[in-house]
């Protein structure tokens, strides 16, 4: 564990706004993604997917498909010996065995010379299904007697919760015996809620709903697999964590991890959706069967129908307060619909509901419910936007009901550092108060009454804000820093750069070692060569890998100084690195260049050890990060159309290592969040089939929908972050839905509790006078 680095050295690497050097190659198409790789002998994979959400497979006839010229393999579950029933994860359910549990589940796999041939082969596979009753709605699926999703005896999958490492200490409860589709259950309790509610002056009860949404990365899931004759597998993968992908694939294929090399390719966005293995196992099996390289690239339709979206979240809250604003009690349930396989993180929701604010009495239950839909995965601050939508909407309504200023009301009750969270652990150092205070000073908030009063031409104007955040992830990780013979630095990690983190790492290495940033090269190694490195997820890449790089650079610096001390016959304590040289302080012409030291480490018969800084830390202290957002809107009450005029993001980043990249994260997170707030929803019919499987009807926002997003960086140093930095990726996706809902109520007087806040919902609510 490291503390904030204190240094008197020049820290010009940290805090510089640096444009991503990889941007031109990405914009001009020079960068190679998995879909661009075509080794000799490449075969193309396609999957036959179930049209039904729940059905028994009676018979599969692949004979016609196998006979099609150009087809090299057609596989069903019967051809794959590793497959077992009761698949513990989605990755293990490579192909359906005798039952499909969501529409879009793979039933057969084809590898062929051309994609078109593979598709034609799919048309020639004859599958006979017996269609079964579905659990399409989580509330129905929870009831005894609902059509069961998992095979009896299947265990809940809590590895996602561990991967995110965000909340510990939430007790899980045994599930009711008859409710077959409740896969996890938890409860957070303190005090006497019933009594406190009875003593309250104002009791508000509402149910909030957020549908399943897709992460919306530009590049779909893609992988290329190839075996050598010795039985070693290489995977070129679009992944957020190559070591995790290696472990999962090794587990599914039942081979040792050192026989698998995962090469993390450029990742065209992940947002949590590319942590778990999805199409790697079947592609590897096709490659093994054909003894050829096989590539699989999911289509956009497959992504939407059979990706790993965020869960639907249904939260009921009942709160009681005194007329003077004293909080009395909160009671609630959070129901997370996980689709066909377990994997939701229950604890985040419970902790935010029960203990973001100082509720003296609380009773919050969490349920993970399985349904016949594609199983879920993480999506940027998993379940936090959905939870904050509920609790922040609720806080706003309470403030309105008792006539309190909404910011003062939140500030009065916000938990501070050291206050106990609902799981008994203390809140750690964070900037929640600072970001909320800062946004309340913004001119758009100060002038919100004028904006509302300026409504004209039948339009309605309003302003809303919200506060949300993320507790921050942790994972052990490693890095090495090498001094090259020309005096430059080579940093090696296994981290996948999905957010511009390579620049931040270079800035950290440059500052910690004492060279300019242009002397530092960051390399993302594959799983054969890189030190073990955690996922690029959980807002922890800079926070944890940054520490490893900082320590490895410090380690390399110390080695460099020791070599220089011997060469210069000086004390290490009198040396400093300046301008590419190690010099004796106060004796400017006595020095040795970094290149000279580097060369000595690579010279025939040299007795000088090459400089190799190493760090492989584990971590125990998270850095919660908060974000406040403000929306200034205008609504056409007849059509329900909502125009965003201004949007402001205020975020505590601890220390801005690369402010430009951070502003990009803040804006990008806000845009994703606004999509969740306004237009996005995976929509299913009563047979649990997706009705909007294209980007035409699964509406991500376009640049025409989004105004300029103002970013305000707040720096409250994280005690254990590299140079005080804390995670920045996840917080900005959290507050927007509540901010928009609060603005809609400000403009129209209508409170909406179900996302997306579509024109239809707004217009019909106004027309019906809700």
């Amino acid at each position: 564990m490291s503390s904030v680095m204190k240094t008197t050295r020049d820290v010009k690497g940290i805090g510089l706004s640096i444009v991503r050097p990889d941007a031109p190659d990405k914009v001009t198409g020079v960068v190679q993604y998995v879909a661009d790789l075509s080794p000799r002998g490449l075969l193309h994979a396609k999957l036959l997917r179930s049209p039904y959400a729940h059905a028994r497979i009676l018979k599969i006839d692949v004979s016609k498909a196998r006979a099609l010229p150009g087809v090299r393999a057609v596989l069903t579950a019967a051809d794959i010996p590793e497959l077992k029933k009761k698949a513990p994860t989605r990755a293990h359910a490579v192909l359906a065995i005798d039952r499909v549990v969501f529409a879009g589940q793979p039933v057969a796999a084809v590898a062929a010379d051309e994609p078109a041939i593979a598709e034609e082969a799919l048309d020639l596979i004859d599958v006979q299904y017996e269609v079964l009753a579905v659990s399409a709605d989580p509330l129905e699926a929870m009831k005894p007697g609902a059509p069961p999703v998992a095979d009896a005896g299947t265990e809940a999958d809590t590895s996602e919760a561990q991967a995110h490492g965000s909340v510990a200490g939430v007790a899980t409860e045994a599930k009711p015996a008859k409710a077959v589709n409740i896969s996890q259950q938890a409860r957070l309790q303190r005090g006497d809620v019933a009594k406190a509610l009875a003593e309250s002056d104002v009791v508000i009860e509402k149910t909030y709903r957020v549908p399943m949404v897709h992460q919306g990365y530009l590049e779909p899931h893609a992988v290329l697999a190839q075996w050598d004759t010795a039985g070693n597998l290489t995977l070129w993968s679009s992944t957020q964590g190559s070591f995790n992908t290696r472990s999962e694939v090794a587990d599914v294929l039942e081979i040792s991890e050192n026989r698998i090399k995962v090469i993390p390719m450029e990742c065209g966005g992940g947002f949590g959706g590319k942590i778990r293995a999805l199409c790697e196992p079947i592609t590897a099996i096709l490659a093994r069967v054909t003894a050829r390289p096989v590539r699989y690239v999911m289509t956009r339709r497959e992504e939407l129908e059979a990706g790993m979206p965020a869960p639907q979240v249904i939260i009921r809250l009942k709160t009681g307060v005194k007329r003077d604003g004293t909080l009395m009690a909160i009671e609630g349930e959070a129901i997370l619909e996980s689709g066909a396989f377990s994997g939701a993180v229950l604890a985040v929701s419970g902790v935010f509901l029960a203990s973001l604010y100082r509720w003296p009495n609380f009773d919050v239950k969490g349920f993970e419910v399985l349904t016949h839909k594609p199983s879920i995965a993480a999506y940027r601050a998993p379940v936090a936007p959905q939870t904050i939508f509920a609790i922040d909407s609720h806080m706003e309504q309470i403030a309105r009901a008792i006539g309190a200023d909404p910011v003062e009301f939140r500030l009065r009750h916000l938990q501070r550092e050291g206050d106990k969270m609902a799981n008994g652990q203390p809140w750690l150092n964070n900037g929640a108060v600072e970001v909320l205070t800062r946004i309340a000073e913004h001119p758009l908030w100060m002038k919100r009454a004028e904006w509302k009063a300026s409504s004209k031409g039948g339009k309605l104007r309003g302003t809303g804000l919200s506060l949300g955040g993320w507790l921050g992830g942790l994972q052990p990780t490693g890095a090495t820093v090498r001094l090259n013979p020309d005096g430059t630095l080579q940093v090696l990690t296994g981290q996948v750069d999905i957010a511009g983190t390579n620049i931040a790492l270079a800035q950290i290495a440059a500052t910690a070692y004492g060279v300019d940033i242009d002397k530092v090269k960051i390399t993302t190694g594959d799983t054969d060569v890189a030190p073990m490195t955690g996922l690029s997820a959980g807002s922890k890449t800079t926070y944890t890998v940054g520490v490893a790089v900082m320590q490895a650079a410090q380690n390399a610096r110390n080695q460099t100084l020791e070599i220089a001390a011997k060469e210069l016959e000086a004390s290490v304590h009198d040396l400093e690195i300046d301008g590419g040289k190690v010099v004796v302080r106060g004796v400017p012409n006595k020095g040795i260049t970094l290149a000279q030291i580097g060369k000595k480490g690579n010279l025939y018969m040299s007795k000088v050890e090459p400089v190799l800084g190493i760090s492989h830390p584990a971590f125990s202290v998270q850095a919660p990060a908060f974000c406040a957002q403000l929306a200034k809107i205008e609504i056409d009450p007849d059509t329900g159309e909502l125009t965003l005029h201004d949007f402001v993001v205020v975020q505590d980043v601890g220390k801005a290592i690369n402010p430009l990249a951070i502003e990009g994260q803040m804006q990008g997170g806000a845009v994703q969040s606004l999509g969740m707030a306004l237009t996005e929803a995976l929509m299913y019919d009563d047979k649990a089939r997706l009705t909007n499987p294209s980007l035409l009807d699964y509406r991500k926002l376009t640049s025409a929908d989004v105004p300029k997003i103002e970013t305000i960086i707040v720096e409250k140093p994280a005690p254990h972050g590299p140079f005080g930095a804390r995670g920045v990726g996840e917080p900005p996706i959290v507050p927007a839905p509540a901010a928009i809902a609060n603005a809609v109520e400000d403009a129209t007087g209508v409170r909406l509790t179900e996302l997306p806040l579509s024109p239809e919902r707004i217009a019909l609510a106004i027309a019906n006078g809700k």
Partner: protein
Amino acid sequence: MRRFELLLPQSVDECVRTLAQQGPETKLLAGGTDLLPQLKNGLLKPARVIDLSGVAQLRAIESANGQGLRIGSAVTARTLELDRTVQGRYLSLAESGALVGSVQVRNLATLGGNLCNAAPSADMAPPLLALDAEAIIVGPKGERRVPVATFFTGVRKTVLAPDELLVELALPATGPNSGGNYLRHTPRRELDIAVVGVASQLTLANGVCAKARIALAAVAPVPLRATGAERALEGQRVTPELIARAADLALEVARPISDQRGSADFRRHLVRVLTRRTLTTALARASA
């Protein structure tokens, strides 16, 4: 996408001959903005595709007798959006062209493709209905003309026989005291499909409505005219009250469904709102 044979005729005659020889399982490709997604997702698996990009006649816009206008079926949405004649005399059609997809989509998407794809939500259909346009169709037996109002026979179905080609749209003259407007509602500003679309066209004579046309999209299997509302306007001085009544009457023909783009209730709500708004704008334009 499955494999198919691609054919490239260079004239209308050659295209019609090719169609007659090839028979069914043949699709025509104009801009491809509707066809290609259907091919890629395996919703259509034609054996042959006829690419119309070599047929120059389909891309022409010609004033007929200095009066009406003939617009080739492969004229793009972007051309309709920017063409001065269309903007001047058939503004609602230019407005519908400007709403399709994004600029990139509009550079490819064609008027004929929008009609022949025959989606109930086709943006360019309501203005053509409101402008009394006719479809000029060529087949093995020669040319025939069909009012656009009867061109659609169902969801994704038209009067076109498998061996026929939609060549042109003929728009009659509008006259000096005529004005029109097309509006649609979409949840997203761009790259979206109409939840409801309404085109209105009003022609005034001596302060009275001489002719009214109101056409609706996405509220029935085919685009259709709200004739009851039209009759209520014709022969009357058009007041805000009368427009509100016409908007109520327009609802009578709407038979909307609930789907992933909107509920039947919301569609009915929008028919009223958009009919009122397009009539108000059409009146202002006709009076200008």
